[in-house]
């Protein structure tokens, strides 16, 4: 009966040794007859298996399997206590053993019995008396199947996790929150973005970036196809974009460049549709070019329109050229870009939404939930009729520009400050010296000036030739309301006056000695104007937002951007019965923490940047640097009875604060203005440690 000698190859039809995983497989032999166990065990050993265990009945088998799961079970059917049928049933009922190969051996030969064996879950059947080569062949086959399936499912798991990683990597190409915030600040807009990579990986991407000259760029693109190929093309397109920084202000040139460098590298039939626009946040002009992306929609109170985004998709033909087109995106309007799945996906009734449908939906969403959350509203509606796992990526991005951008609390340092220069004599030297990108000077002779109806200056300079009467006349020309609101008035003096000179007796006036040179005047005026604009904006924002609810302020707050700082200052100021001075004081402290602390912009440096109208740009640039990217400032607020205490900490190196705390000194020193200003807004102001911590106290009732 044992026909195979140990030397010969024991498994029929096999001329190579068993794979390692198979020969070391754990096989459990279950039989109530000791002789059968021994025979089967020897057969398996000769076949090259060496990890064999035995059980005498069904109970013992189940116990052993529960303790250590074998790779295969050879099971006798007719055993006392628990039969082979019951073992099969129990194993199949348990998830952990549902797929365990069970090879049943039995002396019974009836057809019904064989059916019964498979019905309870046996994998295969061998008849007794056992034919050894057949048993080995079957054992090997089932073990190999098991190992193959296991490695396939391992492979599948690995692929799944790699696809997941690829999806995450695709997500990482999307713009960082910080960049989005920068763009929001530059454009005084809210960006509402939604992006979902499909399960099988697609090729969608969108991005935005601030550009020099108070501009921003925004794009959406869709690389055709699905899966890893599409994702790789997306990565390659994203990387290529970074090579053409210099073309980002010119959409058509940017796309020309992308097309020429990618045309050879995409596989045949693969391409990318794209839309790229540059918005000038000052003139509101929108310059854009299309490469066959779905047509973006501009919508607002005056209805909606689509932009012509037609053009040959990128990476099809080398000779493709793109064309710049213009439109406008005014404050109060939104630009909505999206990927094709939104218009092409099948609706519950079998139709597709189409462009017209989408335009209607976005208008309805805007009416229903407000413009600022219209994309979310639209997508909620879209997903009601869709399986959450769409076959393609979905991108939906809108840039919602706020109404009346110029007066927002974000300040407006990019536009030159309008300054009135009243002079007694024709002082062309002084006039010339004031020329700077940050200042827009309107000059008039004191005797000839007739007050404008709308006195909208950010600073007034009186150049009164050191003559008391002339300065007095000049001051009388300044609008009262302007002075009341804290509008800065600077008197330029040619000579340092004696301490008792009457010219020094005017209230609320700053003096600047220009006898030694006029650079100081230019800087002083620029800084004063900058502060005044910010205070006006804060005041306007507070007036517009009089939801004065008494909130519980106690807590620790973080802020990293000027926008967050302003927001916090406004929120906290609501706690006071007189919110304006508190908002001004807090905003001063918070902005200092950001500009000087987090971003390490020196006091002098800041003045210079304001003078040149470049402060905004510089801040944006610094926030991009590795060193400053993750920095933030903290404010701890504690309330004790009527007193609110603010402790502001920043990660900077502080400064020599003692020099700026003297009232009189602060008045003439440029750097101390902010501190002097903040000081007036609080009951007390204390600088601690190296100056990177400041504590301020205010009472709720007196502001």
């Amino acid at each position, binding site marked *: 009966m044992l026909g195979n000698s140990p030397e010969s190859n024991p498994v029929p039809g096999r001329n190579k040794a068993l794979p390692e995983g198979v020969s070391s497989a754990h096989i459990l032999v279950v039989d109530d007859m000791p002789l059968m166990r021994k025979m089967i065990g020897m057969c398996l050993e000769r076949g090259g298996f060496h990890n064999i265990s035995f059980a005498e009945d069904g109970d013992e088998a189940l116990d052993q399997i529960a303790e250590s799961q074998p790779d295969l079970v050879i099971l006798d059917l007719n055993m006392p206590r628990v039969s082979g049928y019951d073992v099969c049933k129990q194993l199949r009922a348990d998830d952990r053993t549902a797929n365990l190969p069970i090879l049943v051996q039995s002396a019974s030969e009836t057809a019904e019995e064989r059916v019964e064996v498979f019905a309870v879950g046996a994998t295969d059947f061998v008849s007794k008396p056992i034919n050894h080569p057949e048993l080995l062949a079957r054992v090997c086959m089932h073990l190999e199947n098991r190992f193959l399936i296991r490695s396939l499912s391992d492979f599948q798991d690995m692929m799944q996790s790699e696809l997941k990683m690829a999806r995450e990597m695709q997500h990482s190409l999307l713009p960082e929150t910080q960049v989005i915030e920068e763009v929001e600040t530059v454009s005084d807009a809210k960006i509402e973005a939604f992006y979902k990579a499909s399960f099988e990986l697609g090729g969608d991407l969108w991005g935005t970036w601030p550009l020099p000259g108070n501009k921003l760029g925004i794009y959406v693109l*869709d690389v055709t196809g699905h899966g890893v190929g599409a994702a790789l093309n997306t990565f390659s397109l994203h990387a290529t974009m970074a090579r053409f920084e210099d073309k980002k202000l010119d959409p058509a040139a940017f796309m020309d460049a992308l097309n020429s460098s990618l045309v050879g590298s995409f596989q045949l*039939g693969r391409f990318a549709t794209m839309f790229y626009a540059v918005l000038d946040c000052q003139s509101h002009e929108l310059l854009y070019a299309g490469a066959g992306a779905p047509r973006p929609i501009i919508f607002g109170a005056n209805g909606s329109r689509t932009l012509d985004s*037609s*053009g040959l998709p990128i990476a099809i033909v080398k000779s493709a050229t793109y064309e710049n087109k213009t439109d406008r995106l005014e404050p109060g309007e939104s630009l909505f870009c999206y990927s094709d799945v939104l218009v092409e996906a099948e609706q519950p009734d079998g139709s597709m939404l189409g462009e017209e449908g989408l335009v209607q939906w976005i208008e309805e969403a805007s009416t229903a939930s407000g413009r600022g959350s219209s994309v979310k509203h639209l997508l909620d509606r879209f997903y009601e009729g869709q399986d959450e796992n769409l076959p393609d990526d979905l991108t939906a991005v809108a840039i919602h520009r706020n109404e009346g951008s110029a007066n927002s609390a974000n300040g407006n340092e990019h536009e030159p400050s309008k300054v009135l220069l009243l002079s007694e004599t024709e002082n062309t030297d002084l006039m010339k010296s004031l020329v700077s990108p940050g200042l827009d000077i309107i000059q008039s002779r004191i005797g000839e000036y007739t007050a404008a109806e709308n006195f909208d200056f950010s600073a007034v300079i009186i150049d009164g030739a050191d003559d008391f009467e002339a300065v007095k006349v000049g001051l009388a020309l300044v609008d009262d309301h302007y002075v009341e609101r804290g509008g800065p008035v600077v008197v330029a003096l040619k000579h340092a006056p004696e301490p008792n000179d009457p010219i020094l007796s005017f209230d609320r006036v700053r003096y600047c000695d220009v006898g030694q040179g006029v650079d100081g005047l230019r800087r002083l005026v620029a800084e004063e104007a900058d502060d005044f604009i910010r205070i006006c904006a804060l005041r306007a924002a507070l007036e517009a937002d009089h939801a004065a609810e008494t909130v519980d302020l106690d807590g620790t707050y973080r802020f990293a951007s000027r926008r967050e700082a302003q927001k916090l200052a406004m929120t906290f100021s609501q706690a006071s019965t007189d919110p304006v001075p508190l908002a001004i004081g807090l905003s001063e402290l918070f902005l200092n923490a950001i500009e000087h602390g987090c971003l390490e912009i020196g006091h002098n440096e800041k003045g210079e940047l304001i003078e040149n109208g470049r402060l905004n740009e510089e801040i944006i640039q610094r926030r991009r640097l590795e060193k400053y990217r993750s920095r933030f400032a903290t404010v701890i607020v504690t309330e004790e009875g009527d007193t609110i205490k603010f402790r502001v900490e920043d990660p900077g190196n502080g400064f020599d604060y003692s020099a700026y705390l003297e009232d009189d000194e602060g008045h003439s020193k440029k750097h101390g203005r902010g501190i002097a200003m903040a000081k007036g807004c609080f009951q007390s102001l204390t600088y601690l440690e190296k100056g990177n911590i400041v504590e301020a106290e205010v009472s709720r009732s007196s502001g």
Partner: protein
Amino acid sequence: MEYRIDKDGSNVTVVFTGDITFSENVSFRQILKELGESDIQTCTFDLGNVGMVDSAGLGMFLIAKEQADTSGWKLTVSGAQGHVASMLKLTKLSDLLAG
């Protein structure tokens, strides 16, 4: 998507019906294989009965165009309307595949 290939000597018309999307990838390749095996001079894709085409579908037209250019026959599309026509116009492929 379904298709029918009508031959009139060396002039071939492929008449499509239904949607041409990513999932039609395989049958589209079959069409290209059949076209490659025939001796043709001109081929027209009749899109009159096509309801929608997605970007992958447009990609397949480009593959067909490439095959036409390398094998020396001429490919045109005709009859596009509705969504298909606007897609061809948006991507300016209507110019590339014009008759």
